């Protein structure tokens, strides 16, 4: 009996110790899940709602998603209407008022200046997001701004670990700034080159790298392009020979960009678009390492 008594007592003691309640974070997209991990390490539990291989405009509803949002203390999403098709329903079904608004709701796109913000809301111009283009994760400068705001939010919600968050932010900023300098140097040959995109999800990357987007295969999501549009796109792509690549995100169908590539000789490139989009993009650093390497690969 004695042999068992000690382990049993130990187990009982372990079970009865009130576990330090960790801050629970729900991230809508992998890039924000990765950022939370950079900033908080094991001080928080992170759940990520979507993967790099799906279109985050729409998701399949699973019971576990609602359960995760229900128990979350902080929700980190892109905002700017990117998740408008499912996030409101998800929050409503979860009944968690903590993350519906206020401190528990962190929208990354709201922390930075967005591009393509319409000056006047006119539906005639197509797929207009009143808050601008939401895909801010593709600009490392904006990622850093978001990291600082997110860190401040973590400190607010979990002051007990403030020192850890501060120290991890310092470390992340240092490594990120060094990586940015490296990426910028590597990407020097890309500057001024033209790109054609599958869908207009990349403006922040072009803005950072000084590249020009000259056309899009599918200007309106979900609506097949017209033949006139494709004909003019072939002409634009060939024009001047300065077009580097036809770019699509990992989750997008390769057929349209391969089609255009066949007709113009410009290489089609699939970029990870977020953490997990390819084997190399294991975290935010890998995401940009891979993106730059793939664009440089097309330049050869």
């Amino acid at each position, binding site marked *: 009996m004695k042999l068992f008594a000690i382990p049993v007592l130990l187990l009982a003691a372990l079970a009865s110790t009130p576990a330090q309640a960790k801050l629970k974070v729900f991230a809508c997209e992998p890039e924000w899940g990765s950022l939370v991990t950079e900033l908080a390490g094991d001080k928080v539990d992170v759940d990520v709602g979507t993967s790099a291989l799906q279109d985050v405009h*729409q998701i*399949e*509803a*699973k*019971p*576990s*998603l*609602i*359960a*995760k949002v*229900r*128990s979350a203390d902080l929700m980190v999403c892109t905002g700017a209407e990117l998740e408008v*098709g*499912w996030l409101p*329903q*998800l929050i*409503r*079904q979860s*009944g968690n008022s903590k993350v519906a608004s206020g401190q528990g709701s962190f929208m990354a796109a709201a922390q930075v200046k967005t591009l393509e913000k319409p000056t006047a809301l006119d*539906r005639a111009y*197509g*797929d207009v997001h009143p808050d601008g283009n939401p895909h801010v994760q593709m600009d490392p400068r904006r990622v850093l701004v978001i990291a600082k705001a997110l860190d401040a939010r973590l400190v607010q919600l979990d002051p007990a670990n403030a020192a850890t968050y501060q120290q991890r932010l310092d470390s992340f900023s240092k490594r990120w700034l060094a990586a940015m300098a490296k990426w910028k140097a590597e990407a020097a040959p890309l500057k001024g080159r033209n790109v054609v995109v599958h869908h207009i999800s990349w403006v922040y990357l072009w803005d950072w790298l000084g590249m020009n987007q000259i056309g899009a295969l599918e200007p*309106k*999501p*979900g*609506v*097949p392009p*017209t033949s006139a549009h494709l004909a003019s796109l072939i002409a634009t792509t060939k024009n001047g020979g300065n077009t580097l690549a036809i770019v699509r995100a990992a989750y997008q169908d390769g057929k349209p960009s391969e089609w255009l590539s066949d007709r113009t000789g410009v290489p089609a490139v699939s970029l990870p678009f977020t953490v997990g989009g390819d084997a190399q993009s294991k975290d935010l650093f890998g995401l940009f390492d891979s993106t730059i390497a793939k664009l440089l690969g097309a330049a050869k």
Partner: protein
Amino acid sequence: MTLNLEGLDLSILGPACVAGLVVLSTHVPLGKQVLSRGIIFIDLAIAQIAGLGVILAQYLGIDEHGFGVQLAAAAAALAGAGLLSWTDRRWPEYQEPLIGTLFALAATGGLLLLADNPQGGEHLKDLLVGQILWVSYAQLIPAAVLSAVLLAFMWLRGGKLVGLLFYALFALAITASVQLVGVYLVFASLIVPALATAGMKGRSRLVAAYIIGALGYVSGLVLSAVFDLPSGAMIVWTLAGCALLAQAVPAVRRSHPAHETEQAVFDAAA
């Protein structure tokens, strides 16, 4: 695959389960008629026409949220129902291919209209791709009222609906259910329980079909929670699974039509 017990929560699965039962309440008896008329793709066609109605309404500048959309969807579905009831009288032998053609026309007609209307696509998807987990009890009230009215109608008519009345009621039921649970589940709720009980007759058939449907929804929701899979897709598979399992029950299988025809052929030969 890890088991996921946190999703097994009545407040998460409850509204979805009730939505499933509300949809089943009208779709089981309607499915019986759809099957006997041999027009199984009519629900896809009607849903697509309702979607087209929404796009058209937007095209004409009608408010895209709330009541206007519902009105446009119902009006389009009823117009489609009127058309189909007319073709049913005029060319009954071609009803199934006509339904298929109408489905393709409505779906592609939407694309043609959307070429000029960049945001309509999202609303079309909203309408056709209802997700059962997003259902709230508040949303279920109008659907439940509509179902009760439809059931009362069917009961008053002794379960038999003819001509325009069948098509009109069917159109309204489908327009409501597609928005709640999506087009795959509507199709499965309509066809699978009716098909599984095709050999039975009268009240016992209806009861068996309801039981198969209810078991399919409940087991699908539970499995989707435990295995962390999309609920709508899971339920379609458990509905089919329950329908197959039901064939092991002698009362369900006994008078299967396939056996009947075999018998008849045999008799004729003898």
